């Protein structure tokens, strides 16, 4: 493999259209004669619909049609597509429009189609809906208690599932015999994914051909095609889903939402194109939220610092309906991660999925794994405190030793490769850990409160082997497919089923192809986001596009290279075994002046004037790639903070991240993924959090009220890396899209609690706003 392009931080191939405003996102695409859809949404979190009067709205200018839940009987409800086994899973019906009961603020009750966006919204505001309010519950722990308001008749006690796959007796025995047990109630607050592009969908139906085209903000257009086909009843080969430029997703553009079904249905019903784009307020009300766990966690250890077990009971808020992948997030992607990078021999997780009068939750960047890493790292610091040990020494003592090809852990996973202590040492050296502790002591004498947080992590991504997907109830495969198509003039089109939306895959995947075949990167176009143009794929999420699609492209490229080698030998009248390849050129051993470039070979394969016996014409190969295992990136993150004890404000002074995602295809893009992930995770620790009032009203419904991280909250990040290839991957790479988010929340949280420990503060619910920190200091001092 050429090392010049693989591993080079070249500029992104995506950027020219993005920095000039030429890129076209869903709502940038105009459709001739389109009507605009607006959705009438429930202002109540739980209510019975008594009546809907749309007569005044229908008379407003520009209004072409209004439909309510009773009009859309031929549109099936939205399916849940992760049916976790052995959990007594209930999947309550999720109609695209509520016709009987609304279950969260934002639940759709009617749609208006009008000539302009303003007219549609005016008419939506004029639809009169008479509601009879019902009791509301938004906290998942409260919703699981006896006597709580009930959301769905077929979900008894609001419990959608109860997942507990581990041996409880074995866990109880470990905890009963342990020297030390520490316990904490951890609140993983609800978060708003907040992709900067709100969701949008436009649809056009051709009655003559029976074909529906849906443009939408999707991370997985092939999954959208499958679901839109299922809910509309159109055959899958008559549905074309296009995800044009997509402005971030972070998990929130995985699910199929009512809105996408409704624009499709309306386009079919009315025979004209339909456009819809949500406002940010609608995005905060109706696009999935993340996290929302109430966790009761225990960790057991021996007096000499060996971690013996971890167990948790998790009440996971599902919101009002089960979103597309929701049941898999607080279970498969959470409880199986309780070992982390440590030699913990016993884990137990009971995860209870609870229906609440809130926006549905689903995968949000990290999806279950941040919630697992946080609880492990928080409890590690508590154990260190209980044993009066240095938290770094405690972690080091429990790290899994280096392994290059497989390590079985108690949670049932087989990690692929790891050298955790190397990343740990590197990060500690960058931070100057020992010196910091001296500075901290000195600062405290001056009345300044410094703190440090150190997180060692590993995570499971590159989802994943399809056999495992099936075994855990995921209603799809998790392979990817790709085609490398070379034109007669030697230009490459790489068609992929995955659907990147900001990750830079058009560049990194081109670098893989270039390093395998020798075509210049600028001659390689990566084409994605259209179910008609691209081969089948399951989408971009779970840090899987580089590992899975990248492997498919590497293997397709290798098939082409083998074809080229045999054809080049034939053209040069040499034995294929005597052909040498270097940098896109095939030559005969010993006669370097006789050579065929990859472009020459591609042309001759297309012309097919002189092919070897049995070789087909053309220069194109496809590959389906089903990964044999997940990939497990790892690393250590360190934060240094100073807390002002007078105001409670937190100054994040340094952030060090050492990550190992195997060989880096493009170090600039890897760094960008880590920067962004870290900010998202730090923001959970410090400022982001959904607030509902007792009536289920979303109080953080705009960017005025929901605290998004801003540039001036952060220092420049200090990044380092170690390189441990994945043994099972064709080019050794692991995913890196979620590591920053997974590692950073506990890192900063623990740093703040470390700073506050001399003041007697041991716990604060996230986010650690100045007001809450200040109050915690007052409460602790109150006891003095």
């Amino acid at each position, binding site marked *: 493999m050429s090392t010049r392009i693989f591993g080079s931080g070249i*500029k992104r191939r995506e950027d020219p259209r993005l920095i000039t*405003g030429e890129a076209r*996102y869903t709502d940038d695409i105009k459709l001739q004669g389109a009507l605009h859809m607006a959705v009438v949404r429930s202002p109540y979190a739980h209510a019975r619909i008594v009546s809907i009067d749309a007569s005044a709205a229908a008379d407003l200018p520009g209004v072409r049609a209004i439909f309510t839940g009773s009009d859309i009987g031929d549109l099936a409800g939205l399916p849940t597509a992760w049916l976790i086994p052995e959990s007594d899973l209930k999947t309550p019906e999720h109609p695209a429009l509520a016709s009987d009961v609304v279950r969260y603020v934002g639940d759709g009750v009617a749609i208006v189609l009008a000539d302009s966006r303003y007219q549609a919204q005016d008419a939506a505001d004029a639809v009169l809906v008479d509601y009879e309010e019902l009791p509301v519950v938004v906290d998942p722990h409260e919703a699981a208690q006896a006597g709580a308001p009930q959301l769905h008749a077929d979900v008894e006690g609001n419990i959608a599932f109860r997942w507990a796959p581990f041996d409880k007796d074995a866990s109880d025995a470990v905890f009963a015999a342990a020297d030390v047990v520490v316990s904490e109630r951890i609140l993983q607050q609800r978060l708003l994914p907040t992709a900067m*592009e709100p969701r949008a969908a436009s649809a056009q139906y051709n009655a003559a051909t029976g074909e529906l085209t849906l443009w939408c903000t999707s991370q997985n257009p092939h999954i959208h095609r499958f679901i839109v086909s299922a809910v509309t009843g159109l055959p899958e080969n008559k549905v074309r889903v296009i995800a044009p430029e997509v402005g971030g997703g972070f998990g929130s553009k995985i699910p199929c939402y009512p809105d996408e079904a409704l624009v499709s249905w309306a386009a079919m019903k009315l025979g004209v194109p339909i456009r819809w784009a949500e*406002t940010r307020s609608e995005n905060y009300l109706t696009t999935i939220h993340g996290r929302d766990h109430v966790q009761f966690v225990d960790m057991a250890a021996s007096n000499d610092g060996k971690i013996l077990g971890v167990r948790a009971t998790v009440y996971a808020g599902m919101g009002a309906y089960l979103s597309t992948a929701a049941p898999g997030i607080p279970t498969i992607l959470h409880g199986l991660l309780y070992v982390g990078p440590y030699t913990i021999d016993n884990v137990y997780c009971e995860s209870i999925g609870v229906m609440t009068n809130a926006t549905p939750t689903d995968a949000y960047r990290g999806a279950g794994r941040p919630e697992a890493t946080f609880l492990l790292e928080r409890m590690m610091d508590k154990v260190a405190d209980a044993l009066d040990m240095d938290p770094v020494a405690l972690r080091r003592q429990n790290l899994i030793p280096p392994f290059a090809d497989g390590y079985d852990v108690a949670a049932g996973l087989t990690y692929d490769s790891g050298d955790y202590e190397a990343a740990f040492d590197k990060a500690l050296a960058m931070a100057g850990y020992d010196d910091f502790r001296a500075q901290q002591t000195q600062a405290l004498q001056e009345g300044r409160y410094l703190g440090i947080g150190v997180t060692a992590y590993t995570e499971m991504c590159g989802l994943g082997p399809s056999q495992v997907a099936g075994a855990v109830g995921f209603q799809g495969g998790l392979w990817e497919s790709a085609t490398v198509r070379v034109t007669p003039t030697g230009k490459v089109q790489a068609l992929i089923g995955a659907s990147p939306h900001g990750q830079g895959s058009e560049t990194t995947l081109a670098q893989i192809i270039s390093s395998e075949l020798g075509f210049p990167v600028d001659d390689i176009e990566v084409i994605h986001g259209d179910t008609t143009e691209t081969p089948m794929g399951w989408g971009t999420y779970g840090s899987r596009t580089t590992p899975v699609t990248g492997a498919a492209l590497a293997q397709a490229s290798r098939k082409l290279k083998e074809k080229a080698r045999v054809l080049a030998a034939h053209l040069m009248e040499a034995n294929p075994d005597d052909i040498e390849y270097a940098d896109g050129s095939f030559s005969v051993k010993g006669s370097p002046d006789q050579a065929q470039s990859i472009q020459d070979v591609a042309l001759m394969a297309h012309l097919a004037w002189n092919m070897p016996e049995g070789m087909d014409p053309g220069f194109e190969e496809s590959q389906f790639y089903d990964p044999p295992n997940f990939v497990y990136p790892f690393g250590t993150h360190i934060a240094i903070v100073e807390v002002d004890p007078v105001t409670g404000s937190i100054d994040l002074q340094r952030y060090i991240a050492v990550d190992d995602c195997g060989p880096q295809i493009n170090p600039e893009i890897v760094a*960008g993924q880590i920067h962004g992930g870290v900010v998202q995770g730090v923001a959970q620790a410090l400022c982001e959090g959904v607030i509902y009032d007792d009536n289920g009203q979303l109080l953080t419904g705009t960017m005025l009220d929901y605290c998004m991280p801003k540039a001036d909250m952060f220092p420049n990040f200090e990044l380092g890396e170690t390189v441990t290839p994945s043994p099972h991957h064709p080019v050794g790479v692991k995913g890196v899209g979620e590591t920053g988010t997974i590692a950073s929340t506990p890192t900063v949280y623990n740093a703040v609690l470390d700073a506050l420990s001399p003041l007697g503060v041991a716990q604060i619910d996230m986010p650690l706003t100045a007001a809450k920190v200040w109050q915690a200091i007052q409460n602790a001092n109150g006891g003095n």
Partner: protein
Amino acid sequence: MNVSMTINGEAVSREVEARTLLVHFIREDLDLTGTKIGCDTSQCGACTIHVNGKIAKACTLLAAQADGADITTIEGLAENGEHHPMQTAFWENHGLQCGYCTPGMIMASAAFVRDNPGASEDEIRHYLEGNICRCTGYHNIVKAVKQVADAAAGGA
């Protein structure tokens, strides 16, 4: 009502509803879709444009308020087919990922550096409070803006 203005050097005139937001006028009536809408409440800055040389959030102005104005959007920032230095710096420093905040981010940063050559990193971070990015963690955006700010100071 009629509104007339100059956009990216070209005179335009249209009949609009009085309540039409400038951002909708630019995107829907003029089909200049580089200017984005990210929040509706003027926090995110995705709709940042230049009005008479000053930055403005186009979601917070009516088209009528821009009557007679000279407006530049992201589509008009490049000159003679050459990227503006801020566009180049964002590309060179990997200052964007999904690209949705990028037009507003570049428009805001270009005006800031024009008025504040040699700005410090702290000043840049403080200034960028009005523009939100979810992908980059701001690190490379700050680097890009600093590069242009340093170059502007050097050339002054």
